[in-house]
């Protein structure tokens, strides 16, 4: 980031949430880089930025789309980069119909399931140019159960780093970009209506300010300059969050800012190992290394499973998925895993839909979940619809909370606000609760993977106090005892547990050796001369069972038997890439797709932005980083048409993990709610979608339930009951739900109380006083907060109408153990999820605000109900998947495979 010429921070409050990372922004700024902060609030990030652009929460696609339109219409994109490195020139199937032609839905929408069939979004195939959906074309998933299919794929990053499988890479390209079905022309048409005036009317950003932003990006992109985007949960926590990021990716590809120093899109992640917990996932839908969890009916055999990941004829490293999968299963099931039994593939449990945390909580409420482990999280405060979370905890038979302090999730049975309202009674809660004290980061050794994919080993400083122990020790011990109890079982269902490799060395304190686990993750040669040696690269993995490895992308972290994550060569003893500090996956690369930092012939785009280039004499890629490309592949190399896998990567295909080697402006597969980002309003919005009759993302996941109500949107009757927009966020002084900050006096003192931030205009309108109290009421709950009246929150003018936004930090919760407590902003939120990644929308929702403290006890419930009844809300409100269109449009949609009308949502309850 320090190398960027322009930094656009959008959907992130970087200075507050990543202060130390922000030093690189500060440094770039000191060198003269332009820093632009686009955010509903003026934050500590805005204070340092050159420009703050206030935006209406949830309208980012309109702003980014308008910049895309601006660069396309005025030929301001990086032409040579776009033609060579993106799929701009690739032709898309004739069957594809854009939202612009179907009033807000793409072709392939199934109103019955609320999901898309992406078949019509496919590339046109070279084999059958006119009939892309026939044999030679790119097949969609062929599962016979649309529900299972779509729901499983709804697990978004089932496709993770792989992008989506393509049958092959035999695409048709028109490098003049003129063919009307090129991605380039489709993009042009799609964003044509995204004008500066649209930005003004939807985002509330004045036209001049739009031009200022667009000009800054354009002037700071190209051969000589690069622009970097940084985002965080301000983009992900939306009902079309993944599409926000896609929109930025499209813009960055058009401007040639991917794979180059000072470019890219930085995801600023909020937890020490949140990247690692996605790579080696504690997530329902994936296995380590972004291999999907198998889905019943779709992945019944190993062969089906592997075919769904990658076709052997597509380009890139995903074609080696059989080797990654076999190595994983060998690591887990050891000698029991053989080629004859498909390496115990059948031992893996199967998904039948989305089993994410929010779906699980609803299952808990319905009494279907007996036991729950909560490990270093505080859902009673930190998860959306925190009320529902707490009520669900009371339905469990047993709950294990592992933490450092007695967090609200551990004490819900005596301290939760629902006890005060009378909804719960301690004596009636049957849940058994185990509180297990955890070890801190200095009391155990192990790796965190930070936000740029770098693993850093932490050495143990001291042993945990008292009965505290690490998760490593706890889970090892739990597994050991369960295996002991099942020893000798002949029940087939116990085989996976009994065959599991579960033998880790322990030190004199009985603590499991974390390095032994990391070695297992790295993987070994199992047979031949090198048997027992650690793998040095994932390219050594084999599909025949001769290698093991628990997470293929981490292979190499223990190359040569050396724990490379523990590398600590001081920064002043190495160059700026600092390759000898920690270890970044894959293969210690610091910038992904860095082949794109050179032109198609392999020369640096410019001297100033030199990074990785082709050394003609040496016949190798060289530079300041590990080239993210086959090291000896000549830029002029072209694969034979029938080749697949790494051999099929052309000398000018920098995006080596994509199935066609190109950066995807248009996503023919992989996104479940459309191949292009398009604007929909948030689940709750005071504004009608100006683009389409379709108000909300038709692919979002909705849960029509009486405990998950929504305010009416736009001009619907009752929308004025909740007239204001609120957004939730973090402060520098606290950490998420407070488990690691509200118990610390030094942090608590700095932000001691829950507050809301309002503009002076809103304060005057409603009668709020600075330092006084306010009650904020949503369709789900009501909370109280102290009032900060500030010019940092500005009313926006949207289509001539004044729109007020309210800011709510979400760190506080009700309990009795923390140094400071307060109402939780997450109580106000409901559950509606982005369909790609199942993240909830917590950055924008509707509320009312009134002076004074909230009522307590039963009166609180009555207040919320009074609002609901005044707004006339039912479980159906806001949960319609499709909005009604003209018969003519309905017919057009039907022709494009995007059916007419969705059944009423209550008939489709139980979705997921």
């Amino acid at each position, binding site marked *: 980031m320090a190398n960027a010429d322009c930094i656009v921070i959008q959907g992130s409050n970087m200075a507050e949430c*990543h*202060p*130390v*990372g922000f030093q690189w922004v500060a440094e770039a700024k000191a060198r003269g880089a332009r820093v632009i902060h686009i955010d509903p609030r003026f934050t500590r990030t805005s204070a340092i930025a050159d420009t703050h652009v206030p935006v209406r929460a949830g309208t980012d696609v309109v702003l980014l789309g308008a910049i895309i339109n601006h660069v396309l219409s005025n030929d301001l994109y990086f032409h040579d980069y776009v033609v060579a490195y993106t799929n701009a020139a690739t032709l898309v199937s004739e069957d594809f119909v854009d939202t612009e032609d179907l009033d807000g839905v793409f072709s392939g929408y199934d109103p019955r399931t609320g999901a898309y069939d992406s078949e019509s979004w496919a590339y046109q195939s070279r084999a059958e140019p006119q009939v892309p959906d026939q044999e030679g074309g790119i097949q969609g998933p062929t599962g016979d159960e649309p529900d299972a299919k779509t729901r499983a794929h709804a697990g978004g990053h089932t496709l993770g780093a792989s992008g989506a499988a393509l049958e092959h890479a035999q695409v048709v390209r028109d490098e003049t970009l003129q063919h009307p079905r090129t991605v380039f022309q489709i993009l042009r048409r799609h964003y044509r209506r995204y004008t500066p005036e649209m930005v003004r009317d939807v985002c509330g950003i004045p036209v001049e300010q739009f031009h200022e932003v667009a000009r800054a990006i354009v002037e700071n992109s190209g051969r000589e300059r690069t622009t970097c985007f940084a985002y965080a949960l301000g983009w992900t926590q939306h009902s079309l969050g993944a599409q926000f990021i896609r929109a930025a990716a499209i813009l960055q590809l058009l401007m040639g800012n991917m794979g180059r120093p000072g470019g890219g899109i930085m995801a600023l992640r*909020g937890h*020490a*190992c949140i*990247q690692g*917990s996605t790579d080696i*996932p*504690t*997530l*329902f839908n994936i296995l*380590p290394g972004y291999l999907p969890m198998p889905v*019943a009916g779709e992945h019944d055999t190993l062969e089906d499973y592997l075919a769904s990941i990658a076709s052997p004829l597509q380009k890139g490293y995903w074609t080696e998925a059989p080797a990654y999968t076999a190595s994983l299963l060998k690591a887990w099931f050891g000698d029991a895993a053989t080629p004859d039994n498909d390496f115990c593939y*059948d*031992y893996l*449990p199967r998904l*039948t839909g989305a089993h*994410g945390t929010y779906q*699980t909580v609803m*299952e808990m409420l319905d009494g*279907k979940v*007996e*036991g729950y482990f909560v*490990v*270093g*999280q505080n859902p009673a405060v*930190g998860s*959306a619809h925190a009320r529902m979370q707490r009520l669900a905890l009371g339905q469990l038979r*047993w709950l294990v909370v592992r933490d450092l*302090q007695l967090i609200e999730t551990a004490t819900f049975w005596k301290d939760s606000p629902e006890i005060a309202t009378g909804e719960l009674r301690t004596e009636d809660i*049957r849940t058994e609760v*185990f*509180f*297990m*004290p955890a070890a801190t*980061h*200095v009391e155990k050794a192990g*790796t*965190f993977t930070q936000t740029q994919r*770098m693993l850093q080993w*932490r050495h*143990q400083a001291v042993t*945990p*106090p*008292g009965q505290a122990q690490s*998760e*490593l020790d706890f889970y090892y011990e739990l597994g050991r005892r369960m295996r002991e*109890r099942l020893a000798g079982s002949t029940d087939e269902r116990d085989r996976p*547990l009994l065959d*599991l490799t579960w033998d880790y060395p322990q030190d004199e304190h009985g603590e499991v050796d974390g390095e032994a686990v990391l070695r297992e993750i790295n993987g070994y040669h199992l047979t031949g001369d090198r048997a027992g040696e650690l793998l040095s690269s994932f390219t050594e993995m084999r599909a025949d069972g001769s290698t093991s490895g628990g997470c293929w992308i981490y292979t190499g972290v223990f190359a040569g038997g050396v724990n490379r994550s523990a590398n600590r060569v001081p*920064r002043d003893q190495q160059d700026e890439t600092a390759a000898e*500090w*920690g270890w970044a996956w894959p293969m210690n690369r610091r910038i992904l797709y860095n082949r794109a930092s050179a032109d198609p012939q392999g020369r640096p785009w410019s001297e100033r932005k030199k990074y990785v280039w082709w050394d003609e004499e040496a016949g190798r890629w060289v530079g300041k980083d590990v080239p993210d490309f086959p090291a000896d592949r000549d830029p002029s190399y072209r694969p034979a048409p029938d080749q697949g896998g790494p051999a099929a990567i052309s000398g000018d295909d920098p995006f080596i993990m994509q199935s066609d080697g190109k950066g995807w402006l248009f996503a023919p597969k992989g996104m479940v709610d459309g191949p292009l980002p398009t604007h929909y309003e948030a689940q709750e919005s005071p504004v009608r979608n100006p683009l389409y009759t379709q108000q909300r993302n038709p692919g979002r996941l909705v849960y029509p339930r009486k405990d998950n109500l929504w305010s009416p949107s736009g001009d619907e009757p009752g929308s004025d009951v909740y007239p204001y927009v609120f957004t939730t966020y973090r402060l520098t*002084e606290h950490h998420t739900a407070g488990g*690691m900050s509200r118990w*610390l006096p030094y*942090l608590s003192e700095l932000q001691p109380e829950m507050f809301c931030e309002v503009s002076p205009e809103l304060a005057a309108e409603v009668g709020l006083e600075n330092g006084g109290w306010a009650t904020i009421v949503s369709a789900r709950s009501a909370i109280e907060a102290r009032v900060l009246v500030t010019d940092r929150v500005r009313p926006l003018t949207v289509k001539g109408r004044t729109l007020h936004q309210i800011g709510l930090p979400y760190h506080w919760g009700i309990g009795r153990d923390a140094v400071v407590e307060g109402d939780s902003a997450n109580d106000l939120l409901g559950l509606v999820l982005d369909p790609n990644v199942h*993240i909830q929308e917590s950055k924008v929702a509707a509320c009312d605000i009134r002076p004074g403290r909230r009522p307590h006890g039963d009166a609180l419930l009555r207040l919320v109900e009074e609002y609901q009844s005044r707004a006339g809300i039912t479980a159906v409100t806001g949960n319609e998947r499709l909005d009604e269109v003209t018969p003519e449009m309905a017919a057009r949609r039907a022709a494009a495979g995007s059916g007419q009308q969705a059944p009423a949502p209550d008939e489709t309850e139980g979705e997921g």
Partner: protein
Amino acid sequence: MAGNGSSFLGWPVLRQLASGDLLGRGAAVTSRRTRETEPRTSTADRVVQSVCPYCAVGCGQRVFVKDEKVVQIEGDPDSPVSRGRLCPKGAASEQLVNSPSRQTEVLYRAPGATEWQRIDRDTAIDMIAERYLESRRNTWQELDDKGRRVRRTMGIASLGGATLDNEENYLMKKLYTATGAIQIENQARI
């Protein structure tokens, strides 16, 4: 520089005259404690390299240990990620580790109980293992409602991982998957 305090020459008035600190504002007035001051970062038994446990920037930390207690945590100047700097949360890490309110005992709340009770960790893990296996038995699904083999339990869920180590996440995912538990989630989805 300052004279030693215990001798006759250490008598303040003499120090004042001898040191040239005629007004008694400097060397002459230092107490013995002041003269013997040493930072605890210098007297630590060992310094351990670690990584900040809060956000995902991955700032380097140096952990100073004295008598098997953490006495100070500060930024690691060697780190190319953070260059020795820490935000307020990172700077409060020592308080996180040594917090007086930190729980170091296993607590158990029985069904319907109004208070915690202390139990032994070993007992607790045994109880959890038993409950795990029982719930797994109670809620086992060999086939789904369409008759497809799923061999799983929907009765056991887990939340957490983003604050844990890779090795810990790995063991968790491995163990849960082998027992057929699939509702395994973490903050990455929130």
